[in-house]
């Protein structure tokens, strides 16, 4: 089950919200747990026992680290064992997905009527497991560093790691930022309303923008080699940049909206990344929870460890961080190359060049960022390194004598399709803060403006109905970041 399936939108969410809002406060955390467990049972019934066993073991590992810490003994072994447990499971499962073992999955259950699609694969990655394991690593390190104490209440702990709004695409929220509301989810009518609004905006980004663009550009990336003119390659790449942001930030909006409805605040994952003036700034604004995790739990400890070595350059830590960022997305070579590519650019910006860049004309800084971000998305989206190389050649007019197929053979509909252009316009408006800046310039407070409130309410209602109509007619498409 995905947030964009009719079963979630029309049954699961309304039922969960209705029960959550009517039960007394002290029962709300139980409803959240029941909903999260039900979500897993419906989405991946064969992993239900796995998730329960994994959660209990993770819980006791946290308690173990805390126990050793409190006795004053060294916690290194307990911390390393706990982290190896998390990383080992993550790597093992990712490896099984990429290179499926010869033996069949003995617990395979096919319940297509519940999940909305057939489970023909033997090996399916557990929902949100990459996000969960990183949260657990931050949890263990924070316990070891005496930043937090281990959670004692198993209900609060299960609600932290299995909270269903976070399961599909994160955010990777550290436990220290979640403690306050886990024990007492606080739902109010304005908060529920804000949550519903945010959810619908996310749904629109995903279904009406990202999926519409995906229908158009996916066929290009499904070719063995890119049959593209130079202008077509740039067009497809720019569309992908719009699709990726709207897809991922759409899921984040839906997650934050669901969290608000259930009285638990989730962190923001995006802050208008495409307005950045450098790759470094871009990565402070893009997938904030992942870059924050690597900053706090890998980059800073590495830099601290080697701070006295004059010969240790900061670029080494940056490259390590982005190598792991690439590996987090998958073991395929193009993800590794993508991580190293981004790390190299950010490492370059950490030299004196970075200061020079800051002093140049602002449009040049934006162009610098956009160029390298787009170049990095080629590696990220391509099915392999050879494809990426040929895509680069197409971008710079070096594709040579490659037969260029007409779009009619590589795309499902022509570029004159109205829905595509509407999706592009909406996608750009969601990608750059045009409306907030316009409101600021005109000194209009949109949250206080009654006319805007009515218009936006009607608009959101229309978007919700239209999105459900699109999902019903075309079927839901899984999110890009759901696969990680």
């Amino acid at each position, binding site marked *: 089950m995905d947030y964009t399936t009719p079963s979630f939108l029309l049954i699961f969410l309304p039922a969960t919200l209705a029960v959550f809002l009517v039960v007394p406060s002290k029962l709300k955390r139980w409803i959240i747990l029941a909903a999260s467990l039900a979500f897993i049972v419906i989405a991946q019934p064969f992993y239900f026992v796995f998730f329960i066993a994994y959660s209990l073991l993770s819980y006791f590992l946290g308690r173990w680290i805390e126990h050793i810490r409190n006795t004053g003994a060294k916690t290194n072994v307990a911390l390393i064992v706990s982290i190896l447990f998390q990383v080992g499971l993550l790597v093992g499962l990712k490896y099984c997905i990429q290179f499926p073992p010869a033996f069949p999955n003995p617990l395979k259950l096919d319940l297509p009527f519940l999940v909305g699609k057939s489970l023909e694969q033997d090996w399916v990655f557990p929902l949100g497991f990459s996000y969960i394991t990183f949260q657990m690593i931050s949890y263990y*390190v*924070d316990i*070891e*560093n*005496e*930043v937090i104490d281990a959670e004692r209440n198993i209900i609060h702990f299960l609600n932290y790691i299995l909270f269903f709004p976070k399961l599909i695409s994160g955010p990777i929220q550290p436990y220290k930022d979640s403690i306050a509301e886990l024990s007492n989810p606080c739902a109010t009518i304005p908060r529920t309303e804000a949550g519903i609004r945010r959810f619908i905006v996310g749904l629109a980004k995903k279904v009406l923008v990202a999926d519409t663009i995906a229908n158009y550009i996916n066929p290009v990336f499904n070719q063995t080699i890119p049959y593209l003119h130079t202008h077509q390659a740039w067009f497809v790449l720019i569309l992908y940049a719009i699709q990726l942001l709207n897809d991922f930030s759409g899921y984040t909006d839906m997650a934050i909206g669901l969290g608000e409805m259930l009285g638990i605040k989730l962190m923001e994952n995006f802050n208008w990344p495409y307005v950045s003036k450098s790759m470094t700034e871009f990565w*402070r604004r893009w997938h904030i929870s992942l870059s924050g995790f690597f*900053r*706090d739990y890998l*980059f*800073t*400890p590495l*830099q*601290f*460890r080697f*701070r*006295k070595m004059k010969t240790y350059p*900061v670029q080494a830590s940056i490259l390590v961080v982005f190598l792991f960022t690439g590996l987090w997305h998958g073991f395929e070579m193009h993800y590794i190359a993508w991580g190293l590519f981004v790390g190299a650019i950010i490492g370059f910006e*950490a030299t004196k060049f970075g200061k020079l860049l800051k002093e140049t004309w602002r449009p040049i800084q934006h162009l610098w960022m956009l160029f390298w971000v787009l170049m990095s998305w080629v590696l990220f989206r391509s099915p392999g390194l050879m494809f990426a190389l040929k895509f680069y050649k197409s971008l710079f007019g070096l594709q040579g004598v490659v037969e260029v197929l007409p779009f009619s053979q590589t795309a499902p509909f022509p570029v004159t399709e109205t829905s595509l252009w509407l999706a592009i316009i909406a996608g750009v408006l969601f990608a750059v803060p045009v409306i907030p800046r316009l409101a600021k310039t005109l000194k209009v407070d949109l949250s206080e403006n009654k006319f805007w409130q009515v218009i936006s309410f009607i608009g959101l209602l229309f978007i919700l109905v239209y999105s459900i109509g699109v999902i019903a007619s075309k079927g839901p498409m899984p999110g890009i970041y759901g696969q990680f």
Partner: protein
Amino acid sequence: MDFSTLNEVFQETFDQPDLQVTPETTANDVVGWDSITHILLISAVELRFGIEFSRKEVMKFQTVGDLWNCVLSKL
């Protein structure tokens, strides 16, 4: 050694002669205080006060006040 000495380290690290930090100041309040300059700052504080921080201590710093209290505990 008082708080003004710590303030001088901030001014030198961030190359801002007019910078004034308080115990409540956080990384969000100082232009250029990012993950890279953070470690440069830690090293500069260690050098100026002749002390050494542990990884656990550094991970717990949330404000300049946290940093200053840790410095005081080592003097």
